């Protein structure tokens, strides 16, 4: 027999470990493999998206983490946090730790589910690699941001906050939606829609934001996660192609899932949009520019023409996402600003130069639609106040974002859609979210809606302070940045330093 090729060797080390059971039924061994309607005729046709044996995996990953932790240690020792662009930069990282890190953790657990329940040995191995990669990401993010937690507000209760706080039910319900689905839908949701279609929109802004704002640890984490992410992306693409190639009947099912998960993922990125345009002291690029580059060019013009070969169309409702790229970040940040008293990060009125930047980047919308809001907020501040919205917002039953988005083509009219299910009325922010609900109403009526829960008395009590205490929020975590605990400390640390130098 000839020696094995690299591909054969990899196959011998991974999928060849698999065997067909004879003491139990295959359906019994893989009970979740068929209920979604996806038909796989030949698992051996799976093309391994990457070839990494266990020994190389350990070697590369250990080396990457050795470097990362060395950076974390030296940053902590040298009080590196004082070299950030500004303490307000950390608001982006607070949102990241509260909203994204717990999703990495969920991915860790649920890729293990794929490592158990996918029928093919090849994809199972890819899934277990991703399972421990995701644990790596969750843990390195916690360790990276743990240094800031010692000195700044908003980080300290991220785990409980993720389970309780209103705006965090947006990412949480998104991931719960994927995890509660079957294995093939989960692959489409997370590996393809989230990790492939939108990953650049999700991670690049945070990581570039970190590098522009002096956050060396997060930047290092981002770089070191990149090679993991590229494996995850190829897994997402291979999963989709594999399903589409295996059976023609899979095409409409996968199309439906892409339609659902594009919109579901896109709504989660609304938080990223507001972070990019409003929360970074040194901005990298606008949401609009990022959306055009990473989504319109790379995905709509790059990927989807390729997928049309399989009979896959661009996601339903994608045009609405394109149309609202001039509006999205402004609508979301204004909401976070208005309800900022109940958040785990601070918000503030953009400074003059920031307003100019927004005008320049959003020439069609900012000056006529959003600048007046900020001017009003300024007048209130000049009178010694701070604008906050009184009361609680109505949430979309699907994405759980407050109903703040506007009618397509009418940027001053709030969109409102509704459906009736078993005699009850449910509200949605958009056609996309209504369409998703109408496909699976029995699922979405289960949602733990933070505002409903407050009204039902399940969140610590009827008053705002009681709810905030139940969220685990302390003074300085939310509200206005100007004059906040973080800002006062930041000024104090830097002034102390300046006077020390001056006295020499």
């Amino acid at each position, binding site marked *: 027999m000839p*020696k094995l090729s690299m591909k054969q060797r990899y196959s011998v080390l991974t999928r060849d*470990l698999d065997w067909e059971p004879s003491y139990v039924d295959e359906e019994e061994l893989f009970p979740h493999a068929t209920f979604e309607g996806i038909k796989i005729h030949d698992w051996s046709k799976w093309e391994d998206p990457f070839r990494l044996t*266990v020994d190389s995996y350990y070697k590369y990953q250990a080396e990457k983490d*050795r470097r990362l932790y060395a950076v974390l240690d030296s940053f902590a020792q040298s009080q590196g946090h004082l070299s950030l662009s500004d303490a307000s930069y950390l608001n982006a990282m607070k949102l990241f730790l509260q909203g994204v890190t717990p999703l990495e*953790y969920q991915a860790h657990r649920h890729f293990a589910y794929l490592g158990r329940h996918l029928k093919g040995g090849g994809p199972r191995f890819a899934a277990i690699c991703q399972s421990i990669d995701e644990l790596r990401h969750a*843990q390195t993010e916690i360790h990276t941001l743990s240094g800031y937690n010692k000195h700044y507000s908003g980080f300290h209760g991220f785990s409980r906050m993720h389970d309780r706080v209103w705006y965090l039910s947006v990412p949480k319900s998104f991931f*719960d939606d994927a995890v*509660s689905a079957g294995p093939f839908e989960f692959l489409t949701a997370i590996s393809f829609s989230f990790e492939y279609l939108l990953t650049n929109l999700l991670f690049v802004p945070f990581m570039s934001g970190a590098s522009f704002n002096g956050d060396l640890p997060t930047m290092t984490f981002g770089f070191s996660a990149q090679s993991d992410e590229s494996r995850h992306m190829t897994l997402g693409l291979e999963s989709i192609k594999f399903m589409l190639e295996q059976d023609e009947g899979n095409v409409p099912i996968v199309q439906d899932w892409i339609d659902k998960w594009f919109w579901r993922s896109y709504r989660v990125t609304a938080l990223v949009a507001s972070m990019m345009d409003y929360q970074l002291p040194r901005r990298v690029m606008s949401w609009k520019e990022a959306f055009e580059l990473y989504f319109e060019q790379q995905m709509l013009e790059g990927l989807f023409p390729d997928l049309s070969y399989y009979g896959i169309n661009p996601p339903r409702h994608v045009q609405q996402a394109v149309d609202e790229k001039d509006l999205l970040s402004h609508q979301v940040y204004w909401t976070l600003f208005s309800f900022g008293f109940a958040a785990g990060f601070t918000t503030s009125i953009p400074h003059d130069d920031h307003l100019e930047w927004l005008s320049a980047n959003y020439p069609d919308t900012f000056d006529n639609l959003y600048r007046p809001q900020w001017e009003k907020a300024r007048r209130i501040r000049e009178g010694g106040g701070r604008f906050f919205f009184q009361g609680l917002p109505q949430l979309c039953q699907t994405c759980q974002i407050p109903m703040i988005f506007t009618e397509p083509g009418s940027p001053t009219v709030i969109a409102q859609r509704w459906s009736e299910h078993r005699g009850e009325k449910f509200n949605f922010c958009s056609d996309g979210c209504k369409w998703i609900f109408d496909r699976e109403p029995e699922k979405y009526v289960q949602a733990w809606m933070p505002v409903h829960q407050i009204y039902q008395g399940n969140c610590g009590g009827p008053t705002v302070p009681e709810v905030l205490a139940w969220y685990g929020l302390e003074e300085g975590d939310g509200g206005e940045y100007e004059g906040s605990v973080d800002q006062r400390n930041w000024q104090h640390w830097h002034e102390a330093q300046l006077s020390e130098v001056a006295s020499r």
Partner: protein
Amino acid sequence: MPDEHHVRDRGGPNLQYELRQQVIEARRQTFDHLIERLGDRPATRYEEGTIAVQAEEHFHYRPLWAPDRELYDRRYSELRLTDPYSFLDPRQYYYYPYVSARATLHAELSATLAYLEQRDLLAKMPEAWRTGLLEGVLPLRHYEAGAAMASEAACRFSYGASVAQCAAFAGFDRIGAAQMLSRIGLSLDGSTADSLRAAKQHWLTSSSWQPLRRYVEELLVIDDWAVGLVAVDLVDSLTYPVVWRSLDEAALTGGAGAYSLLGQHFTAWYEDQRKWLDALYAAWLADPEQGKANASVLLGIVDAWLPRAREAVSLFSGPLRLAAGDALLDAVIDAAYAEVTERLATLGLEPAHVGAGR
């Protein structure tokens, strides 16, 4: 387009240096969920990366594949911990120390294989040991792959990040062990994979391997992650000591130094694996509310699976008899079995079958 307007001017490099000298008192040492448990002291990276990291409340939707359960739910097993973090990994493995430790393990195996290949020591093994390795050991790569699936189920369905994390590492370890065995096979057959094809046939058809294959397939269809984990551990508890640790001396004196050199890596892994599993058994049994129920569930699992594990190991190790001798093999199986039952007895679990096989 970076905007530097309200970035503070902090002066030149001199100031940077000075900043580093400033002592800033920490507002808190760690996160709330750790402070509540451990007090406001600096937490280890293991603690920060593990404790209370899994979501515990307000799951939005029931799983389509288990509509009567929550996404994370103690009811995925009969074995339960009131406080999931009453179990912590004594090795304190989070991702980084885990991959570092395993990078070393695999580098050491590679060094051994390189050494053996350079000196052609695998080929020079006495025929009986070579056959023993090919027919009585290599098919374990499939057992390891099955055990990986059981570990992945434990990672997904266990409750709390500390157990799930150990299970995830163990699952990855299993694929690692399967690859270690496969690489030995490739060394033996000159990278043609003939030995691995033959090993798969043994796994699928040889009567000596069928009890173990049946055992694995049957434990995988049990809808309780902990049963799978414990049942695999019972096989491990016999397999690793019998196949690797206890035959070391016989291999050395029998001229199969290669067998002994390889065995050290598997024995090292097994000793590491024992640490967290023993701690998990202890936590299950010490649980203030669930301890008694856990003891009875564990005993049930042991009674159902340990005799089968013993039978499976006695049979698949058959090909090693020619190399090691019947008397020795019987003795090491008895010894390994006694070790398991003693360990269980120390935990307060007396299996019904103790002594029955002697």
